[in-house]
């Protein structure tokens, strides 16, 4: 899976978490700060973690999305896990 494909999947997850995220997601870059931009609730974070794990068939280890500052850092983590 290329870095671009991972980003596209992540964007699709962010939109499925809440359709209202769509305009924000379209303007997202790897530098976008996820928590500042989307302000997830505890249930929202749980959704993201589970959806990412299911989509990429990976497991977060003692790490949650709140630990990742930017979209790019989540992509780095997923890339490393997929290798």
């Amino acid at each position, binding site marked *: 899976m290329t870095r671009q494909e991972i980003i596209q999947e992540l964007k699709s997850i962010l939109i*499925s*978490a*809440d*359709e*209202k995220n769509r305009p924000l997601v379209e303007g997202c870059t790897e530098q976008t700060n996820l928590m500042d931009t*989307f*302000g*997830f*609730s*505890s*249930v*929202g974070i*749980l*959704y993201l*973690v*589970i*959806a990412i*794990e*299911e989509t990429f068939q990976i497991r*977060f280890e003692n790490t*949650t999305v709140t630990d990742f500052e930017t979209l790019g850092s989540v992509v780095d983590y997923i890339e490393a896990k997929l290798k």
Partner: protein
Amino acid sequence: MIQPSREAFRRFTDDETFERIRSFGTFQEMWASCLSAYPEQTAIEDNGVRYTYAALEDEAAAFRTVLAAGGAPKKVAVFGPNSFALVKTLIGAVTLGCTAAVLPAQLPDMAVLGCCMKFGVEALIYDPALKDRVQLAAQKLPGLRLIASDETAAEKTAMRPVRPEDPCLIMFTGGTTGKSKGALLSHRAVMEGTVNGCYGIPEIFGQRYLLILPLSHVFGMIRNLFTSLYTGSDLFICRNNKDMFRDAAMFRPTVLVAVPAIAELALTLSKKFGRMMLGADLKTIICGAAPVAPYLIAEYHKLGVELYPGYGLTESANLVSGNPENLTRPTSVGLPYPNQELRIVDGELWIRGANMMDGYVGEDNAAAYSDGWFKTGDLARFDDDGFLYITGRIKEIILLPNGENVSPAEVEAHFNALPFVQDSQLFEDVNALGQPILALEIVPRATELGGMQDPQKEMTEALQAVNRSLPTWQQAAKITIRDKDFDRTPSMKIARYQKCK
């Protein structure tokens, strides 16, 4: 006054199952009955290990020896995240005749100390992972025994009999005033809560439960753990909520006890991934601790799962009522369970009965009661068939300048009936002139927006139509569609705006 009868639930269950539902006076009696009926069945699955009822009792009996060494304490606190060790130590303490205060695992060290002092506990049983947060209590209270939950003994100590009126558990609650308190629950109350949870559910014995709620919450402790044990069921402990769907796929629970936010999350994920994320065998969801949207009941029914709303309080050992007519009366919290009496005074629900607490520990209880009736703080009504409806909270009532009282929950229920409304909050705001007005905020349900040409416009029109259908004094002067969810409390309830209280 309503005096519910167990017979009201007979028609929802087959006769054989109904007759098996019987009360016990104490946890000891119930546990002895379980050990005799289901010794070799699996009671608990945790961290890759299965424990039969007999094995759980063996571990509890060894822990009773640890506790009894040097004299059995009267009161203990148990402090740890959900685990087999927490279950074993809790059962060990209760069956030795101790009163167990169940402390939420997220408490900081100051609060642990405060609880030990306030509840007068003699021993603090802690999960070794939380060792750092019991040190302060150990320093400040030299007489406090510290016992790690993995301590055990070679010898076994027998259960000690207690009376139904003896104290069993101290459970945390926000209380009707919002301040954290410990509700003292007798064995009789705990057993009422345990057994009442069985009424109105078609298949209740020999089930598979997935535990995701904290055991420090009555909904987790009584409706989840104790009812699972009472019914000879198998309880799988989910250690981390993020693993709940992986656990569900493997364990395939038949029953889930959950708050609405989790039921909603599971539904959204199931739709996204095109499969039932809570496992292929799920038949029943027991849902409570916050208002349940009718949408959830209808959507789960389409997936072959019945979601039953219920109503309960920490002070009532959890369950007051449950709704077996979930499809035809989706906004009701159901029929009240037996062995309690209910009345509505000035709109507020008052309760007394075998399931009720014996007061908050170390608090002035005068304000909580009137003539022996516990005042729930919830606004309620009954329909002609005896089904209960919760219409709001007294403390959330908005008093308008014109003298009208508005119950936010009652108004929100009208908006929550729109499929695209996931959650809503009505509160008092001020307009540009500084005059108080009613304002409504809603969180849209993402899955319902796909079919709309112009979601913003369509939602606004539908919300305005509902608003216009309300009595003028209940209408919101300002309606906002939020971009984000509301802030949530640790139990995932909406954190209501302070100005609303």
